[in-house]
Each structure stands twice: as C-alpha cells, then as structure tokens.
C-alpha cells in the first residue's frame, strides 16, 4: 500500500437503536451501498457487514439468523446457510467462499452510527 494513503473513518447515523430487532438485523442504505446492521442483544454487541452474500450475490445477510460458533459471533445467509464471522467477515463453513466486508459501529445516545473508511488522498472510496 502506498504510504501517502491514510484512512479516515467517517460516521453516519444509520437509525435508532430501537429500530433494530432484538438479536436480529436490518438493512441500512448508505449512498448506493447496502449495509447489514445487527444488534446482538444477547452479547450486548453491535455489528455491521455488507448486505450482499458473496456466495450467490444476494442482498440478504440482514435477513439472516445470527448466532455463535465456539464463541465467535456469526450470521447465516438465509439462502444457503453460508455463515460469516461478524468479527472479521470470513466464511466459517466454506473455505472457498469469499469474505464479507465488516464496518465499525458505535452507539451515541439512542442513535446507531456506522463507520465508513474513506481515503483522504484519493477521491476513490476504498469501500467496495
């Protein structure tokens, strides 16, 4: 990576905390992107990933069931049950399947913010 490139996280307000179902997900629109936002109430954690399941290119992850495997939080795509780590986005039950992108999440008051990485020196966004 070029050393002139520095990455900034810009936060946008996605929704209210109560908009997201307990232990479930919703889909958030950000410009032309679709982001799956999960409230893992049981663990008191929030996660965000791309909404697109890379297996069959379906916009569906936000409708998937969340859970854990050996303590690692994951989401299962409703189409073919590919499961992805909510921490680093790797596919947990198919080595051949691509990873998914994850986003940072922060809560301020009752608002949920999702962080988008932007490159400062390039006009291009790093996000896919």
């Amino acid at each position, binding site marked *: 990576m070029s050393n002139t490139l520095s990455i900034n996280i810009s936060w946008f307000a996605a929704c209210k905390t109560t*908009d997201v179902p307990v*232990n479930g997900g919703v889909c958030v629109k950000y410009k032309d992107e679709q982001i799956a936002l999960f409230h893992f109430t049981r663990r008191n954690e929030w996660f965000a990933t791309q909404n697109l399941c890379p297996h069959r290119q379906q916009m569906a992850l936000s409708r998937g069931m969340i859970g854990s495997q050996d303590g690692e939080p994951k989401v299962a795509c409703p189409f073919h049950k590919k499961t992805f780590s909510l921490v680093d986005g790797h596919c947990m039950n198919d080595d051949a399947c691509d990873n998914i992108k994850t986003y940072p999440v922060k809560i301020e008051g009752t608002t949920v913010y999702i962080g988008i990485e932007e490159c400062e020196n390039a006009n291009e966004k790093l996000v896919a």
Partner: protein
Amino acid sequence: MRIVIIGNGMVGYKFCEKLVSKNHEFEITVFGEEVRPAYDRVHLSEYFSGKSAEDLSLASTQWYHDNNIKLYLGDPVKEINRVNKTIRSHNEVIVSYDYLILATGSSAFVPSIPGLEKEGVFVYRTIEDLEMMTAYARKAKKGAVIGGGLLGLEAAKAMMDLGIEETHVIEFASRLMPRQIDDAGSKVLRNKLESLGLRIHTNTYTKEIIGDRSISAMQFADDTTLDVNMLVISAGIKSRDELAKACGLQVGQRGGIVVDDQLQTSDESIFAIGECGLHNNMIYGLVAPGYEMADVVVANLTGGNKTFTGFDMSTKLKLIGVDVASFGDPFIQTDNTRTVVFEDTRKGIYKRINISKDGKHLLGGILVGEAEAYNMLLQTCKNKVVLPPNPEDVILGARGGEADAAAGIVDLPDEALICSCESVSKGDICNAVTDGCETVDAIKKCTKAGTGCGGCVPMLKDLMLHTLKSQGKYIRNVLCEHFSYSRQELYDLIKVKELKSFDAVLDEIGHGDGCEVCKPAIASILASLWNEMILKKGNDTAQDSNDRYLANIQKGGTYSVVPRIPGGEVTPEKLIVIGQIAQKYNLYTKITGGQRIDMFGAHLSDLPSIWEELIAAGFESGHAYGKALRTVKSCVGSTWCRFGLHDSVSFAIRIEERYRGLRAPHKIKSAVSGCIRECAEAQSKDFGIIATEKGWNLYVCGNGGSKPQHALLLAQDLDDETCIKYIDRFLMFYIKTADPLTRTATWLNKMEGGIDYLRNVVMNDSLGIAEQLEQEMQFLVDHYTCEWREVVESTELRKRFNHFVNAPEEKDPTVKFEPLRDQKRAAEWK
C-alpha cells in the same frame, strides 16, 4: 526439487494435495488444459440436477496460491524436451523439471461414424461439453446416447435432466454395462431404466449420422433409422498419450503411457498417473486407482518406497436412481466356485455372489436395484472374512431373527479398507474416534475418509457408534453446541418448564448465543407447544428466514405468497381477487402441486399490503413458508365424480382447517381420495386418506421429494371421527418425538419396530398417552390464529417488512426480473 504436473484433473489435483501435505521443499508447477481448476468429474451429471461448476470444484485457485503451486490454466503443454528436461506450453511458457508427472487423463473415445461433425453431436467429458449440451438441448426433443456403459448411462441421465422428452441409449454389445454386470443383472437394470422412461437398444451398431447441417436421425447397421435432434457419444475413453508419444515415451498398442510398478514411464524422470497410464496392460478408468497411483508417486518422491500392484475395480454407483455395484470378480464361474443368485423382477432387484466351493469365502458379486450391502460385501471379499453358515444371508439378511446391522463391520480386521477413495482402514477410523473424533464430520476432517465418493459414510457412522459404545459412551443426538439435548428432550423440558421464548429456553437449558441450527428448531418446538404468534416475544429473530417474514424467499430476494385454499376448492370471486392482486403487484402466478396458487416476485415491503387485500377477500395464510401443515389435496369425490364413494373435498377441507398452521419438525402434506383410483395421490403424503365402501383407509409416513416413499396403511374402514382421532394421535406423536427437519417417512424408518410399533401406539394406546395426545392437539386447534392477520393489524410488526430501515419507502434496487412467456422470472444468479 522442481516438479511439473501436466494435467489438472482429479488425479492431478490429488497428487498436488498429497505432495504439499508432505512438507518437503518442492517447486511445483501445474499446467491444465481447461480454464477451470480441477473439479469433480465423477459427479459431473449433478451439474444438470442443480450443482454449479463451483460446487463441483475441488479447490479454488487460491488454494494453489496458498500452497505455493504455480498454476497455469487454459494453457496445455505442447512439448516435452527430455534432453533438457523442460516443457513448453501453448502460451510459450517454458519450465524446467527434475521430475515430470503426466496426469493428462483421457478423452472420449469416438468411434468413426460418418456424420460426426454435424451440429448437435457431443461428447460427455468436461463442464464445457455440458454447457454446450445445455444450450443445444433447449431446441431438442429427442436425443440419443451411443454407449450403454457407465458413462453412457450417466450421459442419458443428463439428457433426461435437460428436459429431452425422449432419450435413447444405443449399445453395440448385447447388454448394458458389459464390464460390470452379467446378462441377468443387465436385464433387471434395463427393465428398471425403461420403466423410468429411457429407451434402450442393445446389439445396435450406428452406421451413419444423418442430417443437413445438424443431426436429424441415426442410421443403424440393419438400415433402420431413428429420428433424433441431439446425440451424445459416450462409448468409452481413450488415454491422452499424444504428448508422451511425441517425445518418444513408450506407449501401448491401443494407447496409454506404459508405466511400471513405480508408475515410472520409460524415462525415469517421468511418471504417469491416472487414466493416461497403462499399467500391466490395464487402463484404470476410475478415480480410486488414480488416487492410489498419485499416492505411490508422492511416497516415492518423498523418500518412501511404495508400489502400485493393480487395483480392485469394484464400484458402486447410482444410475438414474438405480443402484448398481460390482465387486471382486463379478463373473467368475469355475469348478471351484459356486454362485448364489437372488432375483426379484417385481421390485427390480438382482443380486449375485460368487463364493468358494466350501462356502467359506466371498470372491465377488453383482448388485442391481439395491446395493446397501456393497461396502460390507466388498470388505468381506477383500479381507477374506469367513462367511456365515448360510452364505446367502449376506445378500438376503438373516431370516427369522433380528440381524444386528453393525455386527458385520465389527468382524472386519483393522486393516480392512473402509474408504477406498482415500485408502483409510478400519483401524485408522477407530483410532480417530478413540482420539476424540466423535462425529462423522470430525472423522472426515481428520482421516479424509468419506470425502471422495461418499459411499462409505454409513460405515463410518456405524464404526463411530460401535467404537463409542465399546468405550462405554452414551451416544446422544444433541442439537448443536448450544444445547446438549435431543429434540425430544428439549420438547419435554420446554413443556415442563413452560418456557415461551427462545431467549428463555437458552437461559434455562442452553448455553452461549444460539445459532442457525438451534434457533429454528427451538422456535418450532415453541410453536408446536403453545401455538402463539411466532413473531412475538422476541421469537421473530429465532425463526428461519421464511418463517420470519411469513413468506418464501426466492432467487433475488423477493418472496412468494400462497394463500390457503383448503382442499383446492376456490370460488370464482376469490380467483378474481388473486388475479387482481397479482396484476397490481406484478406477480408471477403458478398453480402449485398442492392445488393452490403461488404468487412470486413480491417485494418484502409489499407483503403486508398484499396480505391486507387477501385477508379482506376472505383468505388466510397458507403456511407455505413454515415447517407446518401445507395442503390437504383432494380429488373431486362423490359430489361430481361417477366413481366417488365419499365426499373427499368436504373431508379434505375439514382436515385442512383442523390442522392449518400446525408447526412440526418438518412440513406435512396430506390428501384425500374419494375412491381407490387415488386421484389425489394420498399414498405419497405424510398422511393420506382413501375412501372405501365402509369408510376411510388411513395411510401414514409417505413422501415425495428426493427419496420418494409410499405411505403405509395404518388403519382401515374408519368413520370420520375415528379417522381424525387417529390423525390427531399420529401427528402429535410425530411432533413430540421426531428429530429436527425429519419428515414422517424418515421418522418411521428410524423407529424401532416400524409401522407395527406406530400402529400399537396410535390404535392400541400401547404407551398410554393417546388421550394426552388428543388433548394436546385439541389445544393447538383451539389456539389457531392467522399469522398474517396479526401482522396486518399491527403497525409494529408491519415495520419489520421494510427493506431499508432508514428508507422505508424504498424497495431493494438490486432486485431484477427477466421476462418469461407472458410473465416474468427472477434474474439468474451468478
């Protein structure tokens, strides 16, 4: 050391896999002619039944990269220079080698018939061949395959899957699969295949392919012709030895690169493995010997000392749903051998075993129509296990007593090869279990057994269970890592503790956070027990996607909508409403197999409005999305039909309305027929009812699907009330005791005592629970409400059906449709 592998098929890949597992320092380069990395050619025909090229792939290009293997795809090697020890590829890549591995495989053997060049003539070998066939098949109605061997029949299956209306198999020899099975076995196979719609011509030699530009007919030696629009040639294989020949390696007269017991060619730096090699005048056209060859060469290159001394050609396969197997010497017939044959032309089963004269040892055999015993017989044969006093027991089962299925496996010696694809012995598997691999998946991962053809998986399970039992371990069918209970135990615990939400269940009797396995299973138990609205009490996110949105998710992320039409009876007014709604929301409509109407392509956010309109017109949820009662199909019955004995429609409506919304371990289907002609196909249902002169016959535990099974007669000549009472007991007993996602047929198959036991429970109340079962069912019936009505009436629940949480009025912009006839379809996914 520099190793170059020419060929990236199954054997070439297996060689790489075995080589990198040895942790030696190698510089590995692979050249493949096809554009895809190695894929599973054995299961190629599954490409037509829905598997993608990706599903068939053995390893991604990333795998080669991660293992430091240089992979050139779509770049065939053009020349081997044995003096400089280099190869040159089509794209002019030149690589030096210390050892060269030829894994060039084979191509289809194509007999020389005039007219081969015409359009519509294919070979059956690679995914590209399949793609070309798929494209062409759209405009073809009649097809033929030349070759009635293993590959030919696979190709015929592929044609049927492609929707060819009439498929012919043309075989030159006098029987199908001449290398594997004898005349009698072939006859049984032929009858079976013909009953499935294949047309088979043996003793038939194709003289010419007729047609202008594309094929229109075939002409045979007796000058008869057959009109076809498509032809696949699958008459055998031919070793790809041209590269070897060109560089002066010794090849066989009829093809194949000559190799010795080390798989070394006439050049000591060059090896040949798989179908391109000719060992002892034999070309092995199966994957298992190819893998063994790869293993031998890898062992010898890494300091070991192994030889290849021939390979057993035993094989088991499923041809168009018919099991066929042959093992050992299938044909042997001498003074010192005896043959036992069992033939059942009604069921289409043929079994033959060849045994030694003294009846002690199994020498080989053939199985057609039923080959479950194959692995056991193969091991008995290979390991010279002494046969039981009545050798016929090994194909007929011990008669007049309960046989222990695992008994045979226990007798095998530790060296017995259980997985022949990966050469894993019984000892290896038992040791793995002792070392902590206590699931079949763990055994697969640790020993690789069962990862090839998968034929040995049932034996793996038996061995695992036996080994665990012998260690005194209690084997429990636990749900997943979050619950150490079986489904039946969970059902009882949740009931006793009166738990009503997934979270409460997890807190009380589980641990961790739950997952996609336990969530829907527990949600289903909760619904079966309490029949409360499934989206309330935080249970919405524990439902599988279809239940969570009360609709069936389809390609592209839209949903389908199925209102209940009990018994298939619908008024013209209601039909008009369905039509108007489909028009308004631009939905694709189709009549389902369960006599109702499915509307596809609904956006998530449209679902509540669609249902609002349906409910206003008097419809209710059809529960097509749930593991629940689906439909009770009916024939028109005695109100119109001149043969009908009773009013099957009215009874079907009564049954469907009684059990609507009933959640169960899996979906439940039913049907009522008004007479023995059985137009409603009740005997293929979880419970089916057929009118008799005196009342109703009740059949249970049938299903269609991938493993069809006829329902069995539970009780005869019942009046309406008794019939319903028995169904109450039967369904409730199923709901309480079945494993998750188990249909009634599988449930019954696993039940000790089978239908007799079930009949005792349901009719004779052998467990003393009949009254309780009836009461539990009555509770569920009394607490039924339409889930969609509840959603439509609740603003809170309706909110959950928006695609974007922060743009509720917008629909998913990535949803795409394509026109189809006068309607539309989901865009094909990648």
